[in-house]
């Protein structure tokens, strides 16, 4: 058995490693693509474009506008008229419009200053966060004004009863989004490439007709199956190690606290499971085009249910249940817990069991289907 399997493995490794195009793309996928993805932001508000229509042109209005500063806001334009402001908002040049009325200065002195904020609600999430920031800034401004007017003295300000929150963000103190996006992209790439490589390794034999040769060879289905998924697993595991140290840790400076042996062992099991899923696709598909479509059909729901977009606790009930079927959900939770929080097997056993159960099922199912299709 080892002789046959060994020969077949050698052939598969050769096929994979002698295609320089593929090698080049694989290396790019695990380095360049992750570098690019790490630069994307997810949702937080940065340089939110804001336009001001200042009808007051007073010291008070300028003081208020001066508070709308980066990193949250970026003043993109002073509108000269209502129409100009509308145009800026329509065109998406500004997402927030601040209108300061002509008698703002007097209003503020009389403690009844009113200004208007028009928010582009298209991206509702960002709009909500931006409006919260504005509310916070105007509250700060209000205190400052009270102080300037002498209604509040310095000592009174320090005596205002208030609760100061000292917020500490654990595991990612500066909320650096690249820490998250780079690792998430690595997991996406592992999932996508594992499925794609194993599926195409098998379908290719069908397309070229070389499957007939394999049928008449003394190879057993299990050996053929193993020969198709082992090279994928080995190559992707190596690339993941490269990527984690070189890109995730090296470029984005993500501190990796966890047990890396644990991480890579479970990653190997995960790759094997996903590669088995790829083989199941290959059994059904007749050509690469069908593989591509099925892959998209399977990969997105998996990614979507993984919790990367919507955290599991915020999902609708049906979705939370459905997410239990996505191996990526366990793998993501596992990866972030181990690498970011330094959690050990005791904390993540639930995820490991999930990956093992789904993985064994996928493995058994595709071996079974594969065996039937070979006969």
């Amino acid at each position, binding site marked *: 058995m080892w002789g046959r399997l060994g020969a077949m493995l050698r052939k598969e490794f050769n096929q994979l490693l002698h295609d320089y195009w593929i090698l080049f793309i694989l290396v790019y996928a695990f380095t360049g*693509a992750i570098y*690019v993805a790490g*630069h*994307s932001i*997810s*949702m*937080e508000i*940065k340089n*939110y474009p804001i336009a001001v229509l200042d009808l007051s042109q007073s010291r008070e209005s300028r003081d*208020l506008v001066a508070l709308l500063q980066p990193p949250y806001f970026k003043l993109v334009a002073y509108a000269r008229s209502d129409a100009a402001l509308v145009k800026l908002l*329509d065109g998406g040049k500004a997402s927030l419009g601040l209108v300061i009325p002509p008698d703002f200065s007097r209003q503020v002195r009389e*403690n009844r*200053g*009113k*200004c208007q904020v*028009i*928010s582009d*609600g*298209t*991206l*509702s999430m*960002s*709009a909500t*966060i931006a*409006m919260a920031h504005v509310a916070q800034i105007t509250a700060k401004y209000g205190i400052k004004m009270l102080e300037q007017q002498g209604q509040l003295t310095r000592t009174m300000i*320090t005596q205002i*009863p*208030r*609760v*100061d*929150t*000292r*917020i*500490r*963000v654990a595991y990612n103190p500066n*909320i650096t989004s690249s*820490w*998250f*996006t780079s690792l998430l992209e690595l997991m996406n790439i592992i999932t996508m490439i594992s499925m*794609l*490589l194993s599926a195409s390794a098998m379908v*290719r034999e069908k*397309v070229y007709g070389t499957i007939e040769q394999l049928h008449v060879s003394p190879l057993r289905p299990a050996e053929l199956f193993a020969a198709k998924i082992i090279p994928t697993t080995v190559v992707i595991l190596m690339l993941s190690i490269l990527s984690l140290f070189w890109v995730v840790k090296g470029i984005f400076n993500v501190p990796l606290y966890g047990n890396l042996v644990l991480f890579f062992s479970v990653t190997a099991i995960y790759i094997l499971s996903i590669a088995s899923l790829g083989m199941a696709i290959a059994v059904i598909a007749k*050509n690469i*085009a069908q593989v*591509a*479509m099925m892959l*998209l*059909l399977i990969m997105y*729901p998996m990614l*979507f*249910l993984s919790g990367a977009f*919507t*955290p599991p606790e*915020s999902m*609708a009930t049906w*979705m939370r249940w459905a997410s239990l079927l996505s191996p990526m959900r366990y793998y993501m939770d596992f990866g*972030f*817990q181990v690498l970011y*929080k330094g959690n050990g097997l005791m904390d993540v056993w639930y995820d490991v069991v999930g990956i093992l159960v789904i993985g064994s099922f996928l493995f058994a199912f595709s071996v079974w289907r594969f065996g039937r299709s070979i006969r």
Partner: protein
Amino acid sequence: MTARVIAIAHKEAREFLRDPIYLGLAFIAPVVLMVLFGYGLTMDVKHLPIVFLDHDRTTYSRDYMDSFLHSEYFSPLGIAPDRKAADKLLRSGRARLVIDIPPDFSRLISKQKPVQLGVTVDGSFPSRAQVMVGYVNGINRLYNSRLLSNYLAKSVRSGSTPAMPVSVNFSVWYNPSLESKNFIVPGMQVIVLMLFPAILGALLIVRERETGTIFNLIASPAKRWEILAGKAIPYITVAFLDYLITFAMSIFLFKVRFIGSFLFLSCAALLYSTCTIGIGLVFSVIARTQLVAMLITFLATITPAFNYSGFLAPVASQDQVGQFVAHLIPATYFMDMVRGTYLKGLGFAFYWQDLVALALYAIVIYTIALTLFRKRID
């Protein structure tokens, strides 16, 4: 000349129609994606499990904790006995934030003094962390303004005007109810029309090359541009049908607010589909095997479309690398037009420049494909 384009298009269309699995998937997969994201993707971070550490144990501290529980943003896990237990909950992911109320909380408040409160937020998902910080600050601000107005009523000299000097009146345009489906569903249309056409286009040439049938085309009198046009046209049609299906879904199934011009959106969608098929076509011409074509296409379309097109966050908030990528992909331009049409009711008059940009994009991409496509045996 056009007869040859039609002949090749006809052949391509028949090939496509005779692969019912491929044909079916090309229409079903976009629908599945729309349903999944349309119903499932909520950007509203809600029901965050919260744990309190109450070292004060007075009505003041309970009152403060209550202010967190009146919203649907948080769901309480209870009060932890000590710091260690709270940290453990946070570490295991069962709790997302811990609020630590100090022992002198009520004493300081009743003495009109500032209190320092410790909040620990799970930062492993940055966007979620950001939202949580926002919620905590918001709720805390409400609590403070209650304290402040009590205080001002008591101690400010002009006792009759305890109000803050400035108040802000917020109005939300274009999506007044701030419903996330109004931006997610049209956004998904843009994404779907990027991913699927690109992969359809990516297999067009390389499939023939890999199976050897490319020789028929090479030996035929058809010119290079006729081959590319004949191959692209049926798939642009498929992509456009995908657009019509997803549009119908967003209007009738998801009931997204649509106040713009259907005609304008359709023109833009046709141009956009031409671009995305063209992107795939370029990869198809470059690649030697279908696997390579597929890999390049996935890498070049999926992440940029989701992360950089302005789907979930404004392009303006991206850093320089992000903005650069955003301007390389047609999805960014189409995203603007789609949202502008759906929610702002803008049309030809406003977006003619973007339409021209898309048309130029199409010309450039097909020129690249044509230049790289050789009628030669290698």
